[in-house]
């Protein structure tokens, strides 16, 4: 709460530069990092190799989430069978052990995969903040091409170095096809 004054909302979400080629986007991202911008995101119609590195993104949490999901599925799946077949509803078949663990492996495996896969997709969506009905970048005219063949670099107004005029001038120097304001 004490940070309130500095959090005052800028009238713009940010500034967006449009590029025609993936390598110009990577070069632009790298130069923006060098210029000291930190709050940036790039938009592309397909994953561009090296872009995450150029923007200096940290690694993702997705593998950890999947691992945790898999472990939960594995242990949970086995314990479910152990408890149901061993104590809740035991069936004595010729005096064989109730904890017949080899017979529990297939379902344990299936549940491991099931929970891991669900956590991969739901985890990815949750980290990405999807579904998201509204996002300011869609206000940029021509942003629809981000899902076709255009590449965009957005410097957000939350960036401490952000200043509408100087940032706009800076983006122009990057060889962008167009630089537009991103309204909220």
């Amino acid at each position, binding site marked *: 709460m004490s940070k309130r004054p500095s959090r005052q909302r800028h009238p713009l979400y940010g500034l967006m530069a449009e590029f025609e080629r993936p390598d110009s986007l990577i070069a632009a991202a790298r130069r923006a990092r060098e210029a000291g911008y930190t709050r940036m995101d790039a938009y592309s119609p397909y994953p561009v190799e090296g872009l995450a590195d150029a923007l200096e993104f940290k690694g993702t949490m*997705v593998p950890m989430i999947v691992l945790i999901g898999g472990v939960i599925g594995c242990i949970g799946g086995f314990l479910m069978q152990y408890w149901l077949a061993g104590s809740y*509803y035991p069936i004595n078949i010729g005096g064989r052990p109730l904890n017949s663990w080899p017979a*529990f492996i297939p379902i344990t495996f299936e*549940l491991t995969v099931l929970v891991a*896969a669900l956590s*991969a997709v739901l985890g990815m969506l949750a980290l990405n903040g999807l579904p998201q009905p509204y996002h300011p970048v869609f206000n940029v005219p021509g942003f629809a091409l981000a*899902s076709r*063949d255009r590449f965009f670099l957005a410097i957000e107004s939350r960036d401490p170095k952000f200043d509408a005029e100087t940032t706009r001038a800076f983006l122009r120097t990057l060889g962008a096809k167009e630089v537009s304001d991103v309204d909220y």
Partner: protein
Amino acid sequence: MEENPEHRADVDMSIPPVVGPGYTTASVTEKISHIVLTRRTPKGWIFGFTVSFVIVMVLLFSVSFLLVKGVGIWGIMIPVGWGFAIINFVWWIGIGHAGTLISAILLLLNQKWRTSINRFAEAMTLFAVACAGMFPLLHLGRPWFFYWLFPYPNTMGVQPQFRSPLVWDVFAVSTYFTVSLLFWFTGLLPDLATLRDRAKSRVYRVIYGILAMGWRGSARHWQRYEMAYLLLAGLATPLVVSVHTVVSFDFAIAILPGWHTTIFPPYFVAGAIYSGFAMVLVLAIPLRRFYGLEDFITMRHIRNMAKVMLATGLIVAYGYMMETFMSWYSGDIYEKSAFHNRAFGPYKGFYWALIACNVIIPQVLWIKRIRNSTVAVFVASLFVLVGMWLERFVIVVTSLSRDYLTSSWGMYSPTFWDWATFIGTIGFFAACMFLFVRFLPMISIAEMKALISEEDAKHGLEEARQ
């Protein structure tokens, strides 16, 4: 054959590109999304969908009749209690496996040519598994109690028997369907965003917009997306092997002669991929022709798939050989008689037809000229599909109809309703495929663009274009 220079040049370019020449990321987007977003529905589509829809009605009618009368309308009896329901279940689920193989295993193996066929192969998986799932449920006798198969707290105080392969099957198939759906949807997400941005009609924009969940192609999102997609592929790979293994356990764990063998899991998995690739070819060859997608689903794809089919077919043939050898080598009279019964018993016609369709006819794919002819590959694939169905028939029926005691032998023959239900599911599958190619991009747009941009960078075409 003499070596002329032209021929040599042909050999040097033995690996042609996976995309036709002259495509840019924009034109690929236009071409694939146009199939979905065009207002005019092709006449051929309307005709095909109508036919399959009529067959779906046959399915609905036979299922309704089954619900009213019970499984007695089918040909199943004692000793052959499994009949068509289980034959069709195993056949359909096997077909699904090629979709996962193409989308997951070939992704992990970095096989670029999978890109243009993975989307509809995954759709095929989903619909095939949906068809497969119907049969065991309808076979339950009281399908409305299907949820008894799952462990849930209930007032009856009973729980499923976790030591039974039939319960493993419930978990394997439902997991398989769920993971295939997740994999398919994750792959679709960026393409749904493309359709949302390309659609002219408001209705389409809203529907695709909801499905795309607000995907905006952010680099941060792509990073997590690619990781999630790769992990899903890694999870789906052992899963697909496990599913048909568990299906084969339904047989192998029983002590019936002809079923109780350790070769069942690997040879069921190979057979599944075999029939699945046949189905992908049966779908791909008319689709590429009808929608003019020869530049994306190239002859190289057709040839590669034909080769995979040939290879898995040989594994299956090896399985038949080993089964026969082991029945002799085991020295067990029941095993021996089970195999004698297969080849020379009352169902011998099915057995030899299966050998012809699965082992002999597909050997034509060794010939390069045949692999280069879409018609020939299409026909060979149809034979494989029939052959794999016959294989399931032979396995299920011959072993059950003649087990240990002669007094308990019996002959099985399907009824009209067996056929109506089976053909009905084929109609259901076809109708789903028709709806899919009309409303969703049948080729992954984002992956095609990534592929083209990669190829461009490789060949330095970007410089040439400027």
